[in-house]
């Protein structure tokens, strides 16, 4: 699926922390088009994760408009399947009872086409350097290896939009490169990729870098 993207217009999200309201997003405007890699930077607590949660439909904005474009136009984010909107959360979310290969293949299995997706899953795992860990359970691997499995899982079905929260946080430089190669390749194949990251390596590979500060989004002003 190519040509899909996501557009956010004046998104506002406020939480209650005790009796005090905390504004996580104070009018965020964002557009990510298919084929580009957009990096989102900002200090902890600046609202990056909240924005990703809104984009994938796990939370609703207090105000503002969030819409998907292209083939996904008119769809609400919580109705989008894995081939339309894939995620790499910071918590990774691998299924503890499944070996890494089964975790990577799970989106296809739940669609009923595990057999067809098997070779691609193998290629993706090899591509990110975990091909030899196919039979290991998540707890038998390092956090970095788990993170690579989570990225491979996100890429399995050629998603239209991919949201990744700190996808290289646990990687050494070499593996980070391989992960970013895979993400950029997906973008070049038409996927709209939005990364929340602190990793300079990832920022260098992004087509655009946006900075988040105090719930507002703007161009990055300093490295």
């Amino acid at each position, binding site marked *: 699926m190519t040509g899909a993207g996501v557009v956010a217009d004046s998104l506002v999200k406020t939480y209650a922390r005790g009796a005090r309201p905390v504004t996580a997003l104070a009018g965020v405007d964002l557009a990510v088009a298919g084929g580009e890699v957009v990096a989102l930077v900002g200090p902890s607590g600046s609202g990056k*994760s909240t924005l990703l*949660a809104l984009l994938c439909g796990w939370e609703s904005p207090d105000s503002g408009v969030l819409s998907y474009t292209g083939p996904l136009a008119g769809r609400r984010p919580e109705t989008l399947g894995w081939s339309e909107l894939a995620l790499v959360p910071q*918590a990774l*979310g691998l299924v*503890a*009872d499944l070996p890494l290969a089964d975790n990577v293949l*799970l989106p296809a299995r*739940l669609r009923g086409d595990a057999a067809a997706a098997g070779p691609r899953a193998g290629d993706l795992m090899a591509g990110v350097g975990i091909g030899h860990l196919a039979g290991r359970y998540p707890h038998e691997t390092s956090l970095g290896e788990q993170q690579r499995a989570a990225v491979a899982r996100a890429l399995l079905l050629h998603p239209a939009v991919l949201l990744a929260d700190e996808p290289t946080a646990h990687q050494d430089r070499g593996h980070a490169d391989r992960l970013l190669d895979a993400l950029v390749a997906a973008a070049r194949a038409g996927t709209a990729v939005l990364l929340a990251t602190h990793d300079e390596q990832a920022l260098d590979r992004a087509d655009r870098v946006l900075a988040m500060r105090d719930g507002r989004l703007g161009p990055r002003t300093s490295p």
Partner: protein
Amino acid sequence: MSPGPLWRLAPWSRAPRLALSAPAAVLAGVVTVAVLACALASAPLFLSSARSAALQAQLAPQCAEAGWQRTAVTVRLPAGTAPGTVAAAVDAQRSTWERLGRDSRRALLITSSVGSGGNAQAGVLVRDPAGVPLTQPATLLWQAGVTRHVQVVDGSTAAGVWLPASYAEAAGAAVGDRVTVAGVPVAVAGVYTDLFDTDAGPYWCDHRSLYLNPGSANTPPPALLLASDEQTARVLARGAGFVTVAESVPAAAADLSAGEARELVDQQRAAAAAVRLPDGVGLSWSGWNDRLDDAVARAGTIEAGLRGPVVAVAVAGGLLALALVAAAGSFWADRRAAEVRLLAARGVGPGPLAGKAALELALPALLGAGAGGAAARLLVAGLGPADDLDPAAVRLAGAAGVGALAAGLLTAALVAGLRVRAGAERGTAGARPRRAAAAPWELALLLAAAGCWLLLRTRDPVVVDAGVAQVNGLLVAFPLLAVAGAAVLAARLATRALPALRRWAAGRRPAGYLAVHRLAAAPLAAGTLLVAVALPVAVLGYTATLTAGSQATLEAKVGVQVGAGRALVSIRQVVPDAGTDAVGTVLDRYDGSVAAPAGAPGARTDVQVLAVDTGTFAGTAFWDDGFADAPLGDLVSALAGPATDGRLPVVATGLPPGPADLRLGSRPVPAEVVATARVLPGRRTVDPVVLVAADRLPEVPAGAGADRQSELWTDGPAGPAVEALTAAGGRLSRTVEPADVLTTADFLGVTWTFGYLSALAVLVGVVAAGGLLLHVEGRTRLGVVGHVMARRMGLSRGTHLRSLVAELVGVAAAGTALGALLAAAAVAVVYRRLDVDLLRAPTPLLEVPWAAAAATAGAALLVAGLAALYARAAADRAHPAAVLREDA
């Protein structure tokens, strides 16, 4: 951070309140300590309950008076004893009871008199109105209202004696005439129907020996005269020279606890010892109600026999419950992980953290101990043998509850501390079996079971001590060890097959695929779950089957011995008619013999010959399909078949088919054994039994020595049967009742031992269910992020639920099947040896309690299904954004 001021810091000083932030951990603490307290407190309560029930069960089939306090003295009244002295002798016991604050009921009985030589003779001499002595002596009874409890033939309100109708006829006496009793002229105040011709009812229960003669069908007891009033009885007592005075204090035997009964026994002994007779009379005999004494002593014996198995089972249950408490301690560490990790990171060691766990769980544990103790009390009262408990047992149960509180708190805190020391684990879902679990320690259990079995082969499975059957502890230990060992071994083998199952599931639908992968990822949890289901199912199946089999065997032994619900024995021949057919069947019992088989010692073998009415016998006689290969009806029909070379067709047990040289007494009756059975009803001795059609049996002369005895067998009440027997020409000499054959209370220990073992199995089931919930809860928490992502990938709620059901119900079904298999194997090995009475037929019967088995299986599957629903609901409660943020 030093331990000194540590306890004054908020995490410890506010610990009880902080526990409220993890309500699930609080609930786990309450429930698990409650299970522990229930397991420990139930033992003394159960034993007390069993003792009371054993007492009540012994008293129930006896007359109501068996449970009353009673003192009695027989006094000799020398000739010329003044009436005032007689009155003082009669009143001696009542004044003793009055001093104890008890109102007693009096009975005066004259069963002997001074003979012409000054000796004591049985009964008193009665002369008819003409002064002619009657050949049959009499006894005389008075107690309040006695004449209101007979069927009056003719009566008056005058003072005097009431004669039984047959005796009045023999004496030619009518109301208003005067007869002489023990030399004292007295008016005939009434005539009543002989008690043996009626269903006399409970009022006469304790006096049956005065008008029935159970010892012999031929010697009638002395006629029973009734005094219309106490004064008449006293006058006649002076004439007879003897009187027995009994003072009874009624008690409700059905509600007596063993402790109360013991107090009654002690009190009546004290009352008997305190009786002082006036000068001038002699004490011939004194005593008290020793039936109550015996019942109390026997109840103690039954309880003593139960104590070993019950304590062993309670300890086993307590250890299992302690394992659940340990799981709750671990659960607390999980639920309070954030704070625990923080404190551990700041250098707080396992000890202070265990102390914190103890402080937080103290109140829940206290509540749990109280609830567990109350549950034990309610369970024993509601489901135990009796709800009449001794205060001492209740106090002991309270102490057990306190012990459970201390042990539970210590265990939970210890495990929480160890868990902290081991580090905050992310979970056990994918954990491989640890080294301890990998060791084949179940082989030790199986070896121990084999040892028990070998010992059991050389010892009696059921030991009879003072007439009370007690289950050998090995019979309890063997199945527990064997079933536990075999279940663990089977689970180990089953988990070895999980990788192959996982490969098979690769091509299955998502629900099956996920279910199998969850099991394969946690083989230790899967194996534990399998054992947790199989163990209670197996123990329940074993105990329920043996209990049902023992009960059925006991009933069969009674049924075979009596022949039917009850047998009325007549001293005259009963001719069957429509009346007897309506209530049962009539038969004649003969002493017979057959030629002994070649090589057997002696020329002839004694047999019991039952000449039966082929039209009614099969419909009334007790029968179990295990007695023969054919129904009783078919066997009886064979009696009506053609004679073989003039030989009468008979059905026999203990004789081979073919010709039989049968004799009834000395009367030859050539017979052909046309059918055989392993057991036939009416077998009261070890001799073989032969059934023959009464209407085809040749006349057996009285002089043949066959000792014919007519019986009416009935499954209905005694009253109509007695009337039918009398109307058919019979005269009741005695009734054979189930209670006469076996004292059921003597076998209660067997039933209750298995009953308590069943309770352990239910407890194991509860522990398993609690453990399952803790497992599911813990796993759900650990796997919630993965679940959220799987949902995002397209895992539907339906598929998730189906996968949970397939996993949990699948394991429960496998566990149930494994448990049933193990139970069947244990029963097959043991049941033939569980003969509670080797002397009486039949040998142990196998009775499978299908309803209980189905209920057990249903309960196991239901719990698993509910756990699956709970797991899905717990997963559905997760808010994806919050979970992912929290986890991150």
